């Protein structure tokens, strides 16, 4: 047949053909298709009327507008050809380019005809010469009067009368009139209707993305009612799978993914937005609301949580977390991306071209691009908890328990164990293999670096005299240790092989007393590494802490001495930590404390309180020296280089907006007390901050932390020297002193203490006697943005003011009575000052080591609080803190020029007059109905989804360079109808699939193939390879494996090992889902930008790195390999094989069972015979042992394994057929 001949010629031309594909994404010169396709019908004689839109403008746009178009900067010779009035004016030279009707007076004719290199247009250097035909068109056009027509897409669509058709019986919907009229004009006839099996399969795949089951198909095929098809369509539009299918297309445009992209490519949580899209489509949220909620849901009055989730659309931009980047630079790129997505998805405009200069072809000014950006550019970008009742209930329950425990805490002074603890602080540290230690203020020891493979630490103390009964070892996480410790192995783990304790009594004779341990307890032990192993006398066993949820946790072990040891004043306690496991499983940071068993365990509650109060007073006395008088200040001004600072009611300062890697906060204070000697910086948690603050770090570094590099004080513009800095808490050695050490790289950080209040105090070298203005400069500089989040400033006139962890209230009480006698009185005379006592007791409970055990229990419980899922959203900036948008010269982030106001391109209708020009205004403008583009663009994309090709083939470009519509009146009719139908996408889809055009058979004859190879005229139904997700979803459905669960976090179906780890910087260990999550629909597969799911990528799925308006539909051997050999499809084949074995009837019925699961239609007799023969051949091979059922089935279950295996091989064939992966 003819077709074969053609293909043979192709082969002869180029036999070395590796991969082939249909190039769906490419774009062609405007008008090209209609010119070529319709050439048969169009006369090319010199007399024929030239059509401006289809013939002239493409030539002018392609060859002339670059220098003589909208871009004023690039314009040459003051000649503009895209507007008629301009083109008819004399140019710089005085010549007139276009003189309507007069070729000889038109300079354009002379210049395009010239053979002189200096005169000819376009200039040879452009490398875009005109063809003789093109020159001819221009000449004829001028001769005919040089008429211009406005660009079709920029004029509001009108619904024209339905065209008259001869065959009145064919049309089933208005759509058909347009299509048929055109076919009749071309002398063509539509194809016959598709058979019912083909049709039911087609409409299932189109509307819900899944094929019908044989039963569903039969129900339709056997239903002879004239309403059968419509009922089928209605049912499908009501199916929850409808939302899944159509959401996927929107996700392509929205560049949705589950990771941040670029180098680190870390996971993000934005699937609630994806679910919002699915739900919105399922409830047929009208497209105008669909638009408004996604672009500006947060700006709607009384915005619901759902409407705010919807704003995640533009949070799908990528985030570069590389250490060396400028965050604002990548924020700018995200804004560029937002403009791009908005203009592509709604307007079908290539606005991106105007980022660097005025659009060369379309009337979009460079400035207008940035005005459009300004509409979108006034939002902050927080992460939001998605509150849901189930989790809310569970949280409430736990929080009630925690509150109860907390209120009980003061009564839990630890008497049950009867042990009091002392942290003597090490005086000497020795390492067998050369590790070096630092002693920290909290009595702990830090050993940095990976160090030796094994080690023995010897730690010596000189504790106060006491009765020694217990030894406690706390392993502490620390950023100064390899990967955060507490162990140095890299995973945070360590193995304590043995612990030894001895007491050396100094004196005339040095006596050594060795302790024997009788008991060991730990808050957590790794499987196989029980804490008892550390006292079993064997060094090949030991205590380890690896396990869920990771090793980087505070852990502690308590070792009980078999017999108490009495310590004298002169005693030295020596502890040996033997760590012989190897691979650096040694401790990085730890603390030892000595326990003292109280004599009488039978304390009464009264005793308990007495003892508690006594210890409380002792503890408070120790706090007295750092209980200074502080005066809270309210800033007169608070500004920052980039973030926006707002002074809160409680005088604290909240930082929001954009953070950079080097931010300076400048605070000014007036009305100050005289004699200032210190400033206190109180860092405060805030639920608006990442991880509740107090810092603003949201990525790259530890969330909720900050990095205060430098703290500077000026009094009346004179710099004050700071001598001493202290803090209530610091992350390792990154303490407050590092903020006054003149080294910008070092700084104060509180990582590990997120969600809590911390203080730093900076002392002045000399008191400042009298000051009008105090200025503080706080510099936060780090390789990632690390600004302060919320904080407050206090000053003191006390000498030697020091930081304290005490609450402000407690500090004020203690500072008011810096007196131990008063303090004791307060607790012995319980008849007065109960409030003060309660405050102070609360601090004792909150901070003292005595309660650490009970507090840990509460902390553990708090750790079990179920978290709400989070999602990324937009939040309009507060008034007074609007972000300014600039025009960027050449689109360069580093070249901001003048500020611009929000607006839209002037060739389109303006934004509403009386509303603020923000995201809401822009969203409403897009769907106002007056916008000529939105409706057309949407309807065109839906057309493309069903027919494989848009009425405008360039779905993403409706500008001058885009292709002209093949059926302009039809597109306009649909665009207007869409608005009339209340922007209902379901109604419009129904209208399309109800058409006779859609229901045609897709069988193509050689004649049709020659006449209309790309089916532009719609001479037949669509026949297209399924999209990536649908290929897999169909196989899962056919095999009965598909999980129908809707929504939720993304899942990890099987894929070959190493896809997301090997060769990927931000490697992800693909923990393959088990159970139903293994078989969810493709749109739930975890989407990693730098390493997309392999099967999806092979079948032209997107990476989520850029907006995708149209997917390719390639056809490659890698796809064949995936279908033939991949685990996913083998599992489907096995499930199908097993199901077939279990069905009744004979082998013929089983062939039919598998066949119809894959192809829907029943097999022909010939097909059945052929398939059965294959089955029998394979069955014989299994029976003979030549093939092994156990291998094919991967240890299958049930009986009749050989049959199962043979049916599996047959199912594999059917899953691989062209027809199976095709909508026809």
């Amino acid at each position, binding site marked *: 047949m003819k077709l074969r001949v053609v293909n043979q010629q192709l082969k002869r031309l180029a036999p070395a053909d590796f991969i082939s594909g249909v190039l769906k994404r490419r774009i062609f010169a405007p008008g090209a298709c209609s010119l070529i396709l319709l050439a048969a019908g169009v006369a090319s004689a010199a007399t024929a009327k030239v059509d401006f839109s289809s013939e002239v403008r493409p030539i002018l746009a392609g060859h002339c507008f670059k220098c003589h178009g909208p871009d004023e900067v690039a314009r040459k010779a003051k000649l503009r050809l895209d507007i008629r009035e301009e083109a008819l004016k004399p140019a710089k030279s005085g010549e007139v380019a276009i003189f309507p009707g007069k070729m000889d007076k038109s300079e354009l004719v002379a210049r395009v005809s010239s053979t002189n290199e200096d005169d000819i247009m376009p200039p040879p250097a452009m490398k875009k010469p005109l063809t003789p035909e093109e020159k001819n068109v221009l000449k004829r056009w001028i001769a005919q009067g040089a008429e211009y027509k406005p660009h079709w897409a920029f004029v509001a669509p009108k619904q024209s009368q339905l065209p008259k058709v001869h065959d009145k019986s064919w049309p089933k919907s208005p759509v058909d009139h347009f299509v048929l009229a055109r076919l009749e004009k071309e002398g063509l006839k539509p194809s016959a209707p598709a058979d019912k099996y083909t049709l039911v399969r087609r409409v299932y795949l189109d509307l819900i993305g899944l094929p019908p089951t044989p039963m569903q198909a039969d129900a339709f095929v056997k239903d002879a009612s004239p309403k059968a098809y419509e009922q089928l369509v209605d049912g499908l539009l009501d199916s929850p799978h409808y939302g899944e299918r159509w959401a996927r297309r929107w996700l392509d445009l929205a560049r949705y993914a589950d990771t941040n992209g*670029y180098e680190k490519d870390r996971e993000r949580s934005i699937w609630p937005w994806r679910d919002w899209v699915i739900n919105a489509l399922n409830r047929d949220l009208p497209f105008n609301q669909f638009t408004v909620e996604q672009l500006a849901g947060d700006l709607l009055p009384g915005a619901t949580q759902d409407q705010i989730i919807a704003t995640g659309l533009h949070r799908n931009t990528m985030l570069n977390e590389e250490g060396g980047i400028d965050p604002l630079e990548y924020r700018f790129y995200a804004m560029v991306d937002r403009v791009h997505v908005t203009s592509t998805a709604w307007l079908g405009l290539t606005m991106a071209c105007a980022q660097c200069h005025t659009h060369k072809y379309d009337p979009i000014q460079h400035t207008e691009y940035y005005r459009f950006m300004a509409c979108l550019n006034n939002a902050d970008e927080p992460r939001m908890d998605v509150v849901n009742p189930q989790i809310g209930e569970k949280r409430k329950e736990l929080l009630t328990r925690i509150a109860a425990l907390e209120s009980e805490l003061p009564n839990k002074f630890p008497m049950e164990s009867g042990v009091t603890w002392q942290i003597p602080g090490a005086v000497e540290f020795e390492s067998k293999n050369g590790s070096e230690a630092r002693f920290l203020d909290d009595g702990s020891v830090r050993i940095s670096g990976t160090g030796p493979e094994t080690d023995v630490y010897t730690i010596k103390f000189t504790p106060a005299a006491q009765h020694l009964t217990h030894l406690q070892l706390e392993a502490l996480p620390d950023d100064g240790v390899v990967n955060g410790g507490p162990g140095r192995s890299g995973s945070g783990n360590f193995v304590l092989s043995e612990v030894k304790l001895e007491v050396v009594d100094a004196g005339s004779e040095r006596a050594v007393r060795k302790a024997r341990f009788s008991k060991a307890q730990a808050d957590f032990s790794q499987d196989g590494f029980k804490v008892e192993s550390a006292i079993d006398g064997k060094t090949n066993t030991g205590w380890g802490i690896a396990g869920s949820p990771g090793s980087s946790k505070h852990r502690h072990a308590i070792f009980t001495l078999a017999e108490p040891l009495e310590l004298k004043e002169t005693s030295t306690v020596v502890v040996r930590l033997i760590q012989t496991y190897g691979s650096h499983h040694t401790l990085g940071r730890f603390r030892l404390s000595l326990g003292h068993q109280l004599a009488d365990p039978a304390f009464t509650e009264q005793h308990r309180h007495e003892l508690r109060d006594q210890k409380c007073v002792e503890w408070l006395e120790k706090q007295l020296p750092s209980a200074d008088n502080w005066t809270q200040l309210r800033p007169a001004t608070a500004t920052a280089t980039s973030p926006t600072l707002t002074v809160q009611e409680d005088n604290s300062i909240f930082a929001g907006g954009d953070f950079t890697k080097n931010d300076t906060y400048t605070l000014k204070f007036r009305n100050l007390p005289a004699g200032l000697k210190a400033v206190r910086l109180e860092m405060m948690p805030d639920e608006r901050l990442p991880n509740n603050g107090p810092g603003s770090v949201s990525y790259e570094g530890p969330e909720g932390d900050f990095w205060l590099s430098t703290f500077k004080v000026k009094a009346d513009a004179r710099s004050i020297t700071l001598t001493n800095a202290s803090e209530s808490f610091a992350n390792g050695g990154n303490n407050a002193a590092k903020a006054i050490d003149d080294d910008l790289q070092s700084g104060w950080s509180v990582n590990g203490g997120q969600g809590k209040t911390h203080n730093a105090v900076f002392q002045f070298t000399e008191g400042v006697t009298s000051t009008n203005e105090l200025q503080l400069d706080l510099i936060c500089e780090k390789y990632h943005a690390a600004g302060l989040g919320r904080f407050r400033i206090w000053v003191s006139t006390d000498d030697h003011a020091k930081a304290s962890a005490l609450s402000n209230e407690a500090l004020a009480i203690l500072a008011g009575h810096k007196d131990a006698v008063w303090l004791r009185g307060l607790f012995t005379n319980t008849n007065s000052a109960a409030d003060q006592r309660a405050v102070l007791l609360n601090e004792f409970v909150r901070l003292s080591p005595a309660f650490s055990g009970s507090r840990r229990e509460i902390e553990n419980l708090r750790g079990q609080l179920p978290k709400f899922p989070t999602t990324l959203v937009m939040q309009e900036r507060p008034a007074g803190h609007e972000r300014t948008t600039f025009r960027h010269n050449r689109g360069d982030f580093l070249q901001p020029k003048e500020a611009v106001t929000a607006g839209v391109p002037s060739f389109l209708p303006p934004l509403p007059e009386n509303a603020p020009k923000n995201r809401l205004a822009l969203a409403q403008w897009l769907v106002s109905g007056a916008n000529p583009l939105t409706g057309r663009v949407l309807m065109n994309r839906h057309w493309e989804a069903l027919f494989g090709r848009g009425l405008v083939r360039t779905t993403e470009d409706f500008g001058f360079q885009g292709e002209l519509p093949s059926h302009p009146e039809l597109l306009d009719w649909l665009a207007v109808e869409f608005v009339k139908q209340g922007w209902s996408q379901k109604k419009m889809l129904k209208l399309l699939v109800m058409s006779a055009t859609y229901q045609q058979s897709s069988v193509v004859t050689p004649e049709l*193939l020659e006449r209309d190879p790309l089916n532009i005229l719609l001479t037949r139904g669509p026949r297209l390879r399924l999209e990536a997700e649908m290929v897999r979803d169909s196989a899962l459905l056919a095999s009965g494996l598909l999980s129908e669960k809707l929504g939720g976090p993304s899942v990890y179906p099987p894929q070959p090992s190493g896809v997301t780890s090997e060769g990927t910087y931000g490697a992800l260990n693909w923990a393959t889902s088990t159970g139903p999550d293994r078989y969810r629909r493709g749109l739930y597969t975890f989407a990693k930008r730098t390493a997309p799911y392999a099967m999806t990528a092979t079948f032209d799925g997107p990476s989520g790195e850029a907006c995708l308006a149209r997917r390719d539909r390639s056809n490659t051997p890698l796809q064949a390999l995936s279908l033939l050999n991949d685990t996913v499809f083998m599992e489907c084949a096995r499930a199908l094989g097993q199901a077939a074995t279990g069905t009744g009837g004979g082998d013929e019925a089983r062939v039919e069972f598998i066949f119809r699961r894959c192809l829907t239609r029943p097999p022909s007799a010939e097909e059945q015979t052929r398939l059965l023969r294959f089955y029998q051949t394979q069955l014989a091979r299994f029976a003979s042992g030549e093939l092994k059922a156990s291998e094919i089935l991967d240890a299958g279950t049930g009986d009749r394994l050989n049959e199962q295996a043979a049916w599996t091989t047959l199912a594999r*064939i059917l899953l691989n057929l062209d027809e199976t992966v095709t909508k026809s």
Partner: protein
Amino acid sequence: MSCHDHLYACSTPRLNSRRWFLKECGLGLGKVALASMLTDAFSSKLLATPASASEALKPRAPHFPGKAKHVIHLFMAGAPSQLDLFDYKPELAKLQGKPLPPSVIAGQRYAFIRSDAAVLGPQFKFGRHGKSGAEISEALPHLAGVVDDICMIKSMKTEQFNHAPGQIFLNTGFAQPGRPSLGSWALYGLGSESQDLPAYVVMSTGGGVSGGSANWSSGFMPSLYAGVRFRNQGDPILDVTSPKGVDPKLQRASLDLIEEMNHARLGIVGDPEIESRIASYEMAYRLQSSAPDLMDLKKESKETLDMYGCDPDKPSFARACLLARRMIERGVRFVNIYHEGWDAHSDVVGNLKSNCAATDKASAALVKDLKQRGLLDETLVIWGGEFGRTPMVESNVALGRSLGRDHHPAAFTMWMAGGGIKAGLTHGATDEMGFHVVQDEVQIYDLQATILHCLGFDHERLTYTYQGRQFRLTDVHGKVVKAILA
């Protein structure tokens, strides 16, 4: 006269040759039409129909006969230190410990260090080698042995100073993901000559690549122009091995039945796309046997294995280089080997020692091996990172870093060999601090233009229309570096 010859012969090939091509090569309008990339490649906008699948990778003639038919790009991801490997600056040793003059460092952006960081002198000795007397560090003893076959460009400059954007920029001419990579442009322009293997292969050794798949993406071009990953674990090509229990006989029988049924379907519905699918299954089958054959390095002589330093059983850079040579022999167009790990923010000496140990011998062996097999003339080998490293030391106690170097976009070194590049040449120079290029600056766009030139393309004319705009690899920039052409 073959189709390709005719294309060359035409002085203005745009139109005439197209017509001739369409007529003489048996492809008429309206039939399964000619691949549209021709239209784009030659900047014509005559017609174009989204061609049938089988067209996209047909071998095609470039604008003019290029010397290079293949490219092997050894991408030293993470950015090696040019100052310790290629660009010897004794002045830095003198300045060691002092900051650079403000005039030198003004206006630069850095990733981690401050601009007033102290200078760090060269960390290795340098020597002159070969007839060309090229200066190379002792850290690259094997490369020193082939200096007369390579061309060093010491005047490279980029716009990006972070890894992912830097790598993506070098590969695609744009710093954010979404544009076609060099390999995709090569396939788009030249098509494929390999029967049984993907035309554009990507391998990686060392750590992961910062820019991820965007580095070998086809961007807005059809996805079949994207690079195909060859993996170090499991199947080299995903799913190239038949499932457990499927023996060759069953696989063949299965494919036969699939083809038979697809043919039957073609007869009924007439869609030529089915023909493409039949072909793709046949090619998949061939791939199943050609891939193991390609990977079977035991067929190589001991001398060859030793020359590369390759253990056939272990994934390594050496193994990837040897595989690359075998791929070139089998007609593969473009090979990327990423070796990530050069990001020496700390301990630049230790970093270079380990990375040079992993790559030096094999890189040099690849040049030697291609040469002795007569393949170097038609294969362009490119070696280098995404940017260079600072003359200043990186040290940061808070980050635990010392004796490292930061990212440096203003000047770095790459080398190329074969494929139309002049051998034994050192091109360009930097100032005495190695900070700025002072002679023959080569921008990334220039490098890209030169690579396309070697393949036979005028980089200004190799365009692809997307979203109403004709895109080029080199955007609106790029000059062919004629001085380094053979």
